[in-house]
């Protein structure tokens, strides 16, 4: 509350907000106010666990987060671009509609949960159930690119979208992922995985294939974006073999029931 008196109509296009001591609600109010006033870039300093950053902002704005944003970063987000200079927690990009989240660090569990559009780039690794139930419709096709590796249930229940996992933390000699139950319940979308897995790590609804031309183009596009965000050499990443994981059925449970 102590910051409230300092809030006044902001004219600058770029502003900095010192967030130490601000509650989640106060911080999001400040963001709403800034965006309403036409600010195009906001730097948030000393962020320390405030949740839902980026929600309820319906104008294009870039938010650079220094510190550790709390859970549900960009929940229901509809257009902003968030750059995190640190780690994101659980639920990053939860039910996101449009926009971009670029995490210069790790992200927690259920990253990209039920995302419906937009892009999420995570430089390092993610927790459990990343990309769960991402979906797509027409041109709305969410993209999640993970630089490192993932915990179990990656892409569970996946219904659409593109999930790319690069395994850059695995070491170039072995390149073996340890994620289990990848794509369990998958019935849409596609996962491109760089590195090795053994079949028992996949959900029973998942098929494995080589990349076709369209796949290759998709991977090149998003790996290119990933590399430019985090200063990698895209060509070097693309030297390693990718495999494509896809749903075997659009109706995985169609034969489960008696009518």
């Amino acid at each position: 509350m102590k910051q409230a008196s300092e809030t006044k109509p902001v004219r600058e296009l770029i502003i900095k907000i010192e967030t130490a001591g601000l509650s989640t609600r106060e911080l999001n109010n400040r963001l709403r106010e800034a965006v309403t006033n036409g600010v195009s870039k906001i730097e948030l300093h000393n962020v320390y666990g405030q949740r839902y950053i980026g929600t309820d902002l319906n104008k294009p704005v870039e938010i650079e987060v220094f510190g550790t944003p709390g859970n549900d970063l960009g929940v229901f987000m509809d257009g902003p671009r968030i750059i995190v200079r640190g780690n994101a927690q659980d639920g990053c990009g939860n039910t996101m509609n449009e926009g971009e989240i670029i995490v210069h660090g790790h992200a927690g569990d259920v990253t990209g949960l039920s995302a419906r559009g937009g892009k999420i780039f995570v430089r390092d690794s993610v927790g459990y159930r990343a990309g769960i139930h991402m979906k797509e419709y027409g041109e709305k096709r969410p993209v999640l690119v993970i630089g490192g590796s993932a915990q179990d249930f990656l892409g569970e229940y996946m219904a659409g979208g593109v999930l790319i996992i690069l395994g850059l933390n695995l070491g170039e000699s072995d390149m073996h992922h340890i994620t289990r139950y990848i794509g369990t319940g998958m019935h849409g979308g596609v996962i491109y995985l760089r590195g090795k897995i053994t079949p028992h790590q996949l959900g029973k609804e998942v098929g494995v294939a080589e990349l076709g031309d369209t796949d290759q183009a998709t991977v090149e596009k998003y790996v290119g974006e990933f590399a430019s965000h985090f200063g990698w050499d895209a060509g070097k990443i693309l030297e390693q073999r990718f495999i494509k994981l896809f749903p075997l059925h659009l109706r995985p449970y169609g034969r489960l029931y008696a009518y």
Partner: protein
Amino acid sequence: MKTFLPSKFMVERDPNRCIQCQVCVNQCSFDVHHYDAVDDEVRSREENCVGCHRCVIFCPTHALNIRKNPLDYRENYNWRPEVIEDIIKQAESGGVLLTGMGNDKGYRIYWDHLVLNASQVTNPSIDPLREPMELTTFIGRKPDRLELEKGSLRLKTKLAPQVRLEVPVMFSAMSYGAVSLNVQESLARAATEAGTLWNTGEGGLHRSLYKYSKNTIVQVASGRFGVHPQYLDAAAIVEIKIGQGAKPGIGGHLPGEKVSADVALTRMIPKGTDALSPAPQHDIYSIEDLAQLIYAIKEATNYTKPVSVKIAAVHNSAAIASGMVRAGADMIVLDGLRGSTGAAPKVIRDNVGIPIELALAAVDTRLRQEGIRNQASLVIAGGIRNSGDVAKAIALGADAVYIGTAALMALGCTCCQQCHTGKCAWGICTSDPFLTKRINPDIGARRLVNLLRAWSHELKEILGGMGINAIESLRGNRLALRGVGLTDTELEILGIRMAGG
């Protein structure tokens, strides 16, 4: 494989009345009636009949009647016909038995063991036809205390968002895809006209229904179908669906055949794919996580509307409800054992959950004991049949009720329990365009408004008889109830006395 299942029903066609007009052939979506052109005769395949009565009602010469097949098995209290036939079905299909509508088993219906009070001699009853009578109900968090400005007596306390209902009866969540768009439009228009709310269920809000958004509850469920900022902004209330009375703990599979182009657009998933709602919401594994989603929605809508949380009534509902209120829910919904569904595994529907009357009493009692009952509105669902049930529910502690089955019955549903087949002959629970056009939203809305109007009048009669003139005075007033034919334990949980005492 030859099926060993006998017909459930017999179709009786009076040859003296039948004019071979084939209305029944066109009306039946289960392929019972068919026309033999060679013999110029309409015939029946009785084994397909589900007993929905569509043909009977539409037969212009009243030539048809549907009767239960009197075929008897040798009497056996354990191996009843339903048990035998379920086993046969599974032996022939290897599948999980699916069913529609609510639990049809003989669990005690407590409403039928509760009786209401009335004024005699010591206080006057009121005639609602001539005196004002108030059913207005406000849904939302109420403050712990009210502060007024000295002098002007203006309200100083900042109230949380409230939604006004003219009648404490709302329409239960029924998603687009499970029911047709014409059904949703009927519900939306009726809710708007009657001053109550309808609920989108978890299938998103069709673009043509945004104009009714002031009377709309939108759901955020595990599938997150059609959930986006405009959807949340449009609603009067946002409801987080954790569970459903017909299938506590179970997710949902909307079969791909029902995902038409328009359903796909509203849910924002590709046409023809299964719409899978996972059993849990994977960002909610605890009360703290629930609080996180409640406040995510509050932030996303800038604290402008109540957030509801709906659970199925289960053994420890009271403790869970306490957690829900403390997590920030402004409205909590309990859906009981008899709650209905468009499709659920039969074994779950018929065996999981607890009766809503007991859950309601337990939750209301618990929230009062903890001094937090004011912090959330309490809404119940699951088998509310008439205004008597509504009055008893309110006396037991509910702020309002949801009706689903009763609303669909107003539209023609006869509870044949075939919702899961997608072939509803009444055009309600289907996405087949040939069938959905059977519901005309003009007429549908009229029938629903009529039902609410009738129940409102009856509620006013009940209140008047008790000598009270506002539903607020009945709310949580368990002295207005007495029990008949209940055990001491049942009376204790319901928090009421035995009739006569």
